[in-house]
């Protein structure tokens, strides 16, 4: 039998079911790998070994007594943006560095109900604001493919943990690309579902009209397996959509013959060299061989998605983060002179520089006299972009383009220039603005670093996305490559 960490989540589920190994054995294996490798990766903020082993023992009981679900006994890691009852939940911020959540996020609660085993909480950009995992109060995360490079962000800890096989699967969140971009930079399969598909309850808010939880795993099959239990209506999230969750596994193997793939003209023209686009173009050829048809589509306002996002997201962030006041929870400054001093110093000292930058950007664009020029205009362009996507999906089943303009870059290379950093998300932000489901899947390497192919579908077409990704993964093996150091 192959070493446990080299197996996919689906293979591990089969192994638990056939009693090839127990959940306690499986959990010990991953905990020992965390122990061995996390000092160099910095993928975890908190590791919860006692809790994990207790949950694993419970899972083994359920398996023994025939009350197990498909996910019972499988270990996972949660991004530290999800509230976990009784466990430190920091959002990678000094502001929450002492916050023991008094409740579980719906996503956490559902997977706990299934009997999954939580290994710990993963590192991320502070409050999910970043594209390189360098804004964390707990330090930068390293890319398992090259420890001098960033893993992408904001779900960089989840990405590094799964890519290094110190966790078999992890949750992530995606506001402007925070699941897809790190998935691309670490050779993982990541899915951001339709806005409203996965509950945001207990998922610490960044930009509420854009945030969506999802999965980072080793294959489309694994993503389908976990998403099946994460998705679904939650009355505690007022924007949760009350719609049945289809059986994602049932349609994974549908033929891709006749699939219409739209190639976003604006994205293939913009900022990518012939050399860098090669793996993506090769992937498109594979889809043609599977019977798909390539059609060029144009979304003329899509290049405006980055400036639109950098009005909408900071505006919502400045509003959401006003709850951190140093009074009810979170960091409080030493010896405040008066209430104003308490607020301003607790916030000034508790937030990192990128978070403060976004709060101030948001405060400015919402302030009197500027609201119409910035926020209202951005919301109008958001509609234009959304309508262009809708028109494209009248003609094609899915859209494809690169996930990220570059492969993983050096740690420190872009930290001093926020605008250059923001442009990392040029291909991913559109799906957030329009609320569309989107994935990144591994499609090759450039100079030893992973490249991702992005697939975008219409609202609630997660099953189609997973089917399209799975079809490719049946005839290619990029998603099976792992960094040698962690093999």
């Amino acid at each position, binding site marked *: 039998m192959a070493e446990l960490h080299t197996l996919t989540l689906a293979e591990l589920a089969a192994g638990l079911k056939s009693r090839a190994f127990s959940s306690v054995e499986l959990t010990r294996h991953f905990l020992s790998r965390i122990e061995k490798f996390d000092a160099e990766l910095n993928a975890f903020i908190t590791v919860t070994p006692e809790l994990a082993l207790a949950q694993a023992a419970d899972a083994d009981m359920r398996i023994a007594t025939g009350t197990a679900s498909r996910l019972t006994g499988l270990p996972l890691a949660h991004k530290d943006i999800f509230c976990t009852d009784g466990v430190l939940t920091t959002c990678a911020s000094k502001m929450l560095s002492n916050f023991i959540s008094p409740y579980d996020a719906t996503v956490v609660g559902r997977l706990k109900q299934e009997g999954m085993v939580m290994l710990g909480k993963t590192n991320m950009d502070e409050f999910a604001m970043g594209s390189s995992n360098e804004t964390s109060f707990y330090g930068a995360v390293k890319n398992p493919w090259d420890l001098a490079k960033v893993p992408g962000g904001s779900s960089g800890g989840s990405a590094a943990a799964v890519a290094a096989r110190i966790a078999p699967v992890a949750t992530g969140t995606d506001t402007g690309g925070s699941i897809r971009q790190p998935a691309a930079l670490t050779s993982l399969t990541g899915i951001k579902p339709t806005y409203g598909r996965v509950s945001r309850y207990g998922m610490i808010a960044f930009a509420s009209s854009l945030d969506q939880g999802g999965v980072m795993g080793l294959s489309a099959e694994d993503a389908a397996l976990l998403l099946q239990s994460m998705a679904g209506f939650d009355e505690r999230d*007022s924007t949760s959509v009350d719609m049945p969750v289809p059986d994602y596994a049932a349609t994974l193997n549908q033929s891709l013959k006749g699939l219409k793939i739209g190639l976003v003209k604006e994205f293939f023209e913009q900022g990518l060299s012939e050399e860098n686009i090669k793996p993506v173009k090769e992937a498109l050829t594979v889809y043609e061989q599977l019977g798909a048809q390539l059609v060029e589509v144009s979304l003329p306002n899509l290049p405006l998605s980055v*400036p639109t996002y950098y009005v909408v997201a900071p505006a919502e962030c400045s509003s959401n983060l006003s709850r951190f006041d140093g*009074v*009810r929870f979170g960091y409080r400054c030493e010896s*405040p002179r008066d209430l104003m001093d308490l607020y*301003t110093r607790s916030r000034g000292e508790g937030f990192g520089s990128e978070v403060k930058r976004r709060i*101030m950007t948001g405060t400015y664009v919402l302030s009197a006299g500027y609201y119409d020029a910035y926020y209202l205009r951005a919301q*109008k362009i958001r*509609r234009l972009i959304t309508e262009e996507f809708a028109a494209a999906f009248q003609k094609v089943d899915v859209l494809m383009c690169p996930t990220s303009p570059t492969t993983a870059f050096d740690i420190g290379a872009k930290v001093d*220039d926020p605008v250059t950093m923001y442009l990392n998300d040029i291909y991913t932000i559109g799906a957030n603005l329009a609320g569309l489901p989107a994935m990144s899947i591994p499609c090759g390497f450039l100079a030893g670093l992973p490249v991702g192919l992005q697939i975008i579908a219409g609202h609630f077409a997660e099953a189609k996305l997973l089917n399209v990704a799975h079809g490719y993964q049946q005839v290619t093996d990029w998603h099976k490559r792992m960094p040698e150091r962690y093999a």
Partner: protein
Amino acid sequence: MSLTRENIAAIAHLARLAITEDESAAYAGSLSKILHLVEQLNVANVAAIEPMSHPLTGMVQRLREDQVTATDEHEKFQRNAAKVSDGLYLVPKVIE
């Protein structure tokens, strides 16, 4: 649009953020760059376009029955507070 350090001080006050002199200079530069990026939005023709605040159009705000659904757990919640006394959150004196 270029922001001065005075602009930054005013924004920081609105946002209730204490920032240092060094931070203020850095933010004047980086916020100006961000606003420059955002100026690209001026090229689009947005006349007669409805602003969009929710990514799924046609959704209505869901309401629930007005009944008690949560139990009193203030002791548990207040464990995360910096200063609490008799179930109350303590802050510096507001009224003399």
